[in-house]
C-alpha cells in the first residue's frame, strides 16, 4: 500500500486535493440538475474520503512535527502564504471530516427536499472549509478557513432548518463571530509584535510574548475556540443550532465543527501561549469549566423532551471531557481528549443520523411520541443501542477509551477535578438510558408507530461503518494512539518546556527541521533534535 | 480685492445654505444648492490669483459636476412630481429607517 501510494506521489498532492476537490464538486453540483445533485455530491465526497484514506498508510508521525508540508506565497507583502501540513493531531481530524461528510451527505438523501443543488453545494463547500482549517499551517489561511466554515453552516441551518431556524442560525453566527473577531485582533497583535512580518506557524510560536501579553491573547483565542467547543457557559447556541439544523447539518456540526474548537486548543492555543496555558489559575479555570460542562450538560440533557436537544446537550458534556483532558496537560489526558474527539464525532454523528431517520418516518423529535420502536424496527434498535452505549462510554466502545484516558490523565495532576468529572459517567447513564427506553422499549401504544419502517439498505450502509468504527476504536485503539502520540508530545513539551529561551531555540529548530525535510531524514541533527525515545516501533 | 470677493462668496453661500434648510420647494432647494456651488466657485477663482492655476482648474470640475447634477436632479424632481403631483419636500419622506 505504501509502495503504491509512493509511486503515485501521493504525499505531494493529497493535501491540496483534499481541500480543492470539494470545491470542484461544489461547482459540479451547481452545474447539474437538482435531481442529480445528491448523487454527484455524494460521489465527490466519497472520492475525497477514499483519497484521504491513503493518509492512514502514508502518514508517518515521525518526530511529531508537520509532514507533507508545502508552502507557496500568497500575499507576499503581508507575509501570508498558502502553507499546508499535517501531523498526528490533524490527520485524524481530516479523516473524520472526510468520513462524516460523505456519511452526512448520504444521510441527507431523504431529508432534504427543497433547493437541493444549493444544499449539496454548501455541504461540499463546508467540507472544503473544514479540511482547509485542519490543514492550514499559516495563521492567516487558518483564519480564512475558520470563517469560511461559518457561511455554509449559517445557510444550512437558516434555509433547511426547522421552525425557529432563523433564530438559531443568527445565534450560531453571532456567537461564533464574536469569538473569532476577538481572535482576529489577537492574531494581528501577535503578528505585529513578532516582528517577523510573517503569518507562519513558527513565527507565531517564536513571537517572544511576555506572560502578561500571553494571558490576554490566550483569553481571546480561548474565547473563540471555547465558543466553538462549546465550553459552559458559551454553549447555548449549540442546542438551538442542533435542533433546528437538518440532519446532515447536525451531523457535521457535532462531528466536525465542534472539533475545530478543541483542535484549536491543541494546535494554536497551547503552542502559542505556553506560559499562559500552564499558568495554574488558567488551568484551574479551564478545568472547572470543563467539569461544570460535563455535569451541568448531563443534567440538562436528562430533562429534555426533545431527543435532538438531548443529544445536543450530551455533546457539551462530551466536549467537557476533551477540555479537562487537554488542560490536565498530561500525555494521557491529551490523548484521551483526542480519542474523545474522534469517538464523539462518530457516536454523536451516528445518533443524529438515527434521530434524523426517526424524524423522516414520524416527523417528530419529541421522545414521548415514540415507544416500543424496538419491536417494529429491530435493526434500527440494535444500531441505536450500540450507538447510545458508545456515547455513554461503555468499555469495548470508543467512548470508553477516550473518557478513561482523559480522566486518568486529569487524575494525574488534578485529583479532585477528575473525581468530580468521573461522576459524569453516572449522569451519562442518567440521560441516555431513559431516552433509549422511552424510544425503543415500553409499550408500542401509538398506532402510528406500528408502521415505523426498519433500516433501509442505504441506512444500513450509513450505520455499518459507524458502528464498526465505534467497536474498532474501543477494542483496538492502539493504531490511533500511536499515530497521534508524537505530535501530542510535541505540544506537551512545548507547554511544559522549561525556561522559555531554551525552549524557543530548540522548538524553533525542530519546527524548521520538520519543515525542510519532513520524511526523508527525521533525525538530521542529533544535537538539535530531541532523541526519539518514545517513538514506537513501526514496520512497513 | 480678495476680501470683498471672499465676503461675497460667503454671503452667497449662506443664502444658499439657508435656502436649502428653510425652503420646501424642491426646485428652489435645487437652485439654492447651485448657489452654494457657485459661491464656492467664486472663492476658488478669487483665491487662484494667489495660489496659482489649480483654483480655476477646480472650478471646471465643479461646473461639470453641477451640470451633471442638474440634469440628474431635475430628472428626479420631474419623476417625483409626476408621481406625487407636488414638489414640496415635506410630502415625500419615505426614505427613512
Amino acid at each position, binding site marked *: 500500500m505504501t509502495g503504491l501510494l509512493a509511486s503515485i506521489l501521493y504525499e505531494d498532492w493529497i493535501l491540496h486535493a483534499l481541500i480543492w476537490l470539494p470545491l470542484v464538486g461544489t461547482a459540479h453540483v451547481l452545474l447539474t440538475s437538482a435531481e442529480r445533485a445528491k448523487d454527484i455530491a455524494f460521489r465527490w465526497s466519497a472520492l475525497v474520503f477514499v483519497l484521504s484514506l491513503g493518509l492512514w498508510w502514508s502518514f508517518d508521525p515521525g518526530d511529531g512535527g508537520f509532514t507533507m508540508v508545502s508552502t507557496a506565497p500568497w500575499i507576499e507583502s503581508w507575509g501570508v502564504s498558502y502553507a499546508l501540513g499535517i501531523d498526528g493531531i490533524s490527520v485524524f481530524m481530516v479523516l473524520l471530516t472526510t468520513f462524516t461528510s460523505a456519511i452526512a451527505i448520504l444521510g441527507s438523501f431523504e431529508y432534504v427536499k427543497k433547493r437541493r443543488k444549493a444544499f449539496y453545494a454548501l455541504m461540499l463547500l463546508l467540507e472544503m472549509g473544514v479540511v482547509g482549517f485542519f490543514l492550514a499551517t499559516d495563521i492567516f489561511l487558518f483564519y480564512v478557513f475558520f470563517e469560511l466554515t461559518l457561511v455554509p453552516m449559517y445557510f444550512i441551518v437558516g434555509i433547511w432548518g426547522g421552525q425557529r431556524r432563523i433564530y438559531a442560525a443568527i445565534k450560531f453566527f453571532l456567537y461564533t463571530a464574536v469569538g473569532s473577531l476577538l481572535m482576529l485582533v489577537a492574531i494581528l497583535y501577535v503578528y505585529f509584535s513578532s516582528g517577523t512580518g510573517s503569518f507562519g506557524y513558527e513565527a507565531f510560536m517564536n513571537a517572544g510574548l511576555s506572560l502578561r501579553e500571553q494571558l490576554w491573547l490566550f483569553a481571546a483565542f480561548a474565547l473563540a475556540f471555547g465558543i466553538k467547543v462549546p465550553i459552559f457557559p458559551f454553549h447555548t447556541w449549540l442546542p438551538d443550532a442542533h435542533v433546528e439544523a437538518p440532519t446532515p447539518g447536525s451531523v457535521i456540526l457535532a462531528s466536525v465543527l465542534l472539533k475545530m474548537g478543541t483542535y484549536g486548543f491543541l494546535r494554536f492555543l497551547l503552542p502559542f501561549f505556553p506560559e499562559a496555558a500552564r499558568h495554574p489559575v488558567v488551568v484551574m479555570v479551564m478545568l472547572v469549566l470543563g467539569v461544570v460542562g460535563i455535569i451541568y450538560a448531563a443534567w*440538562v440533557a436528562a430533562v429534555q423532551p426533545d431527543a435532538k436537544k438531548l443529544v445536543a446537550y450530551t455533546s457539551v458534556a462530551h466536549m467537557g471531557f476533551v477540555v479537562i483532558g487537554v488542560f490536565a496537560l498530561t500525555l494521557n489526558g491529551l490523548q484521551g481528549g483526542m480519542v474523545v474527539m474522534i469517538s464523539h464525532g462518530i457516536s454523536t454523528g451516528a445518533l443524529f443520523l438515527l434521530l434524523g431517520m426517526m424524524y423522516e418516518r414520524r416527523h417528530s423529535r419529541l421522545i414521548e411520541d415514540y415507544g416500543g420502536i424496538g419491536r417494529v424496527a429491530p435493526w434500527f434498535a440494535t444500531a441505536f443501542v450500540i450507538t447510545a452505549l458508545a456515547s455513554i462510554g461503555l468499555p469495548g466502545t470508543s467512548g470508553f477509551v477516550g473518557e478513561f484516558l482523559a480522566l486518568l490523565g486529569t487524575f494525574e495532576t488534578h485529583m479532585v477535578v477528575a473525581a468530580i468529572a468521573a461522576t459524569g459517567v453516572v449522569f451519562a447513564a442518567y440521560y441516555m438510558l431513559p431516552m433509549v427506553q422511552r424510544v425503543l422499549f415500553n409499550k408500542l401504544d401509538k398506532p402510528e408507530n406500528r408502521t415505523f419502517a426498519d433500516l433501509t439498505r442505504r441506512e444500513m450502509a450509513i450505520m455499518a461503518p459507524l458502528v464498526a468504527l465505534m467497536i474498532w476504536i474501543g477494542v483496538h485503539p492502539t493504531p490511533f494512539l500511536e499515530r497521534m502520540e508524537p505530535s501530542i508530545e510535541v505540544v506537551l513539551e512545548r507547554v511544559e518546556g522549561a525556561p522559555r529561551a531554551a525552549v524557543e531555540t530548540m522548538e524553533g529548530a525542530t519546527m524548521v527541521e520538520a519543515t525542510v525535510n519532513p520524511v526523508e531524514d527525521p533525525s538530521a541533527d542529533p544535537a538539535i533534535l530531541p532523541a526519539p525515545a518514545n517513538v514506537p516501533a513501526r514496520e512497513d | 480685492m480678495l476680501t470683498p470677493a471672499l465676503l461675497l462668496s460667503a454671503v452667497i453661500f449662506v443664502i444658499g445654505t439657508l435656502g436649502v434648510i428653510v425652503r420646501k420647494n424642491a426646485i428652489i432647494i435645487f437652485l439654492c444648492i447651485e448657489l452654494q456651488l457657485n459661491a464656492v466657485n467664486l472663492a476658488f477663482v478669487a483665491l487662484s490669483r494667489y495660489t496659482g492655476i489649480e483654483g480655476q482648474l477646480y472650478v471646471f470640475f465643479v461646473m461639470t459636476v453641477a451640470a451633471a447634477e442638474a440634469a440628474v436632479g431635475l430628472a428626479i424632481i420631474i419623476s417625483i412630481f409626476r408621481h406625487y403631483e407636488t414638489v414640496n419636500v415635506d410630502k415625500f419622506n419615505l426614505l427613512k429607517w
Partner: protein
Amino acid sequence: MVTGVSAASLASAGMAVQAAAEWQPILPGLIVLLPLLGFVLNGILALQSARHSSAALREGRDWDPFAGARPPATHRLPTWIGPGVMGLAFALALLNFLGMPADLHDPVVVPYWGWIVTGDLSIAAAIQLDQLSMVMTLVVTGVGFLIHVFSVGYMGRDPGYPRYFAYLNLFVFFMLVLVLGSGFATMFVGWEGVGLCSYLLIGYWFSDREKSDAGKKAFIVNRIGDVGFLLAMFLLFNGFGTLDFIPIFAGAENHFAAGGVTITAITLLLLLGAAGKSAQLPLHIWLPDAMAGPTPVSALIHAATMVTAGVYMVARSSVLFALAPTSQAVVAGVGVLTALVAATIAMQQYDIKKVLAYSTVSQLGFMFMAVGVGAFTAGIFHLVTHAFFKALLFLGAGAVIHAMHDAAHHGDGHLDEQDMRNMGGLRKYMPVTCAVMWIATLAIAGIWPFAGFFSKDEIIWYTAAWAGAESNPFGQLYAVYWGLALLTALLTAFYMTRLMVMTFHGANRTGKAASSHLHEAPNVMTVPLIVLAVLSVFGGWINVPNALSDSFAGLWGSLPMTEWLHHWLEPVTHTAAEIQVAGFGEAAHAAPAGGGEVAWALISTVAAAVIVAAAVMFVGRRKYVPAAQDAGPRGALPRFVYNKWYFDELYDAVIVRPVLALSRWCWKAIDTVVIDGFVNFTGNFARLAGWATSLFQTGQVNMYAFVLTLGVLFVLGAAVFL
C-alpha cells in the same frame, strides 16, 4: 506504515510472559471466545427472526414462531448453539483446570494484543490464569452451562428465544473477561459488560414498562459503583504506573504503609464498586427489581455469577485490603448489615423471586463479611457453594413459575404466578422440584452435611477467630459482627423454610380450574436441577476445615478433600494472609463467647435445624389466602419490613427527585433565563439602539441639510478655536 501493535510494544507493556516456563494452558482464549461466538451466531438469528415478527406487527398481527409443526430455524438453532458453546467452554476450562499444576506459584499471563498503549500507560488484552480465576471460570462456565440447558425448557416457547440466548452468551463472555482479565482495566471491561447484559436481560421483555425500568435502575446504580472502581484504578495508576495485577500486588506491600490514607482510599473506592455490582448496602436496591428478568437470568446473573463479581474483586485485591484494616472492617460491616437487613426483608415477602433475591443479597453480605475479615478463601468458598444452591433455588422457582404460568393460563381471572400466596401444596404436582429445592434450602440454612453448612460456618468462625486476634484494633467490632452473623444465619433458615412451606406444602390455593394444569417440569429442566442438587449436597466437602475434619462434620476424618480449596487458593491469598497476621497477630482459637470450632459448628447446625423444624410447624399452621384476597402484613414492624425498609422511597425523596428538580432548574433557570437571557439581551439591545437612533431619520431633506450644516459649523469651529 503501521500494522497493528508489534511485539516490541507488547514487550514495552511490561508484561511478564511466563507461560513457557511453568505450564502451557490449552487455548485459554477460546474459553472466552466461544461464548462470544455464540453471541454472534444467536444475534444474527435473533435479528433474522425479528425481521419476521416486526413485519407481522406492521401488518397488525402477532407472529407466533411456534405456530407450525416445526419452529423455524431461528428458533431451533439456538437450542444447540447457546448451551453448546457453554458446554465446550466448560470442557475447555475443565481441561485447563485438570492440567494446572497444583504447585503453580505464579499466575500465567497470556497476552493477545496491546489494548490501550500510550507513552506511560499500557494495558494489554491478556488473560491471567491462576487458581482463583480458574475456580471462577469453572463456576461461570459450569453453572452457566446448566442454566443454559434449563433455559432451553424455560424459554423454549418465547418468541424472542434467539435474542435471549444471544444476550445470555454475551453475558458469559463478559463474565469470563471479568474473571480472566489480567488487570483492573480488563476486569473493568467485563465489569461494565456484565452490567450491560444484566440491563438487557432484566429488560428482556422490554415492552413492559416496569421491566425496562428495572433494567435501567440496575444499570444506573451499577454505574455509581463503577465510578468508585474507576477512581480506585486512577489512584492505583498514580501509585504504580500500571494497572496489571501482578506488579501491583507484588509491589503493594513496599509501596503502601499498612493502614495508610491512600491504600484505605483505594480499597474503600473498590468497595463502592463492589457494593454496586454485588448489591450491598446502600446500593442493594437494584437487585430485587432485577427479578423482572426471566428466571434463569436471575439464577445465572443475579445469584450465581455476576453479583458475586464484587466478592471476586475483593478477593482478587486481597493484598490491598489486607493492607487497609479500616477498609476491611468497613467491608465486613457493610456485609453483615446487608446480610441482616436483607434477611429481615426476605421474611415478609410473598413474591417467590423477591424472597430469593433478598436471600441472595443477604448471602452476598456473608461473602463480603468473609472477605472483609480476611477469610478470602471462605468468601470464595461460599461464593462457589452459593452458586450451586442459589442457582438451584432460582431454577426451582423457575420450574414452579413455569407450572404456575401454564396453570394461570387456564385458570379463572388474573393470577400472579409468582405470589406464594397463590401456590401451596405444589409438592403433589412437582415432586422432583420440591425435593431438590428442599436440598437447596437445607444447604442455605447451613445444616450439616449440605454445602452451605461448611462455607457459612467457616465465615462465621473466621469472624469469631479474628475478633479474638490479639492486636486486632477492631476486635470488639468483629465480635458484634459475629453475633449479627449468627442471628442472620438463623433468619435465613426461617425465611427459606417459610418459602418452601408456602410453596409446596399445605392446601393448594391456585384454584380448581388452574390446579389441574400444574405439572412437573420437562426433563431438560429437571436434569440441571438434579445436577445442581448433587453439587449442593457435596459441594461443601471440597473445603472441610482441618479443625472439623476429625469431628462429626468431617465424618471423623473420612472425607477426602479436607482443606482442598484452602490449599488450592493459597498461592493467591497467602500474601494477604501474611500481612494480616503481621498486623493482627494470630487468629484466636475460640469464639468471643467461648467454645471451639467443633462446638460452634454443632451449635449452629442444631440451631438451624431447630429453626427449620419450628418454621415448618409455625408456617404450616398459618392459613394463607390467595393474594387477591390478602391485604398484606399487619402491624408496624411487619409492614416496615414488607416495604423493604422504605429504601426506594428514601432514595426517591433524597436523591432522585432533587437531582431531577435540579436538572430542570438548571435548564429552565440557568440555560434559558440567565445565559440565553444575556445572549438575547445583547441582540435586543442592538435592536433597541438601532431603533432609537433611527428616529433621527425623519425623511425631511431640510432637516438633514440643517444637521449637516450644524455639523460642518461644529467642525469648523473646533478647527478654528481649538
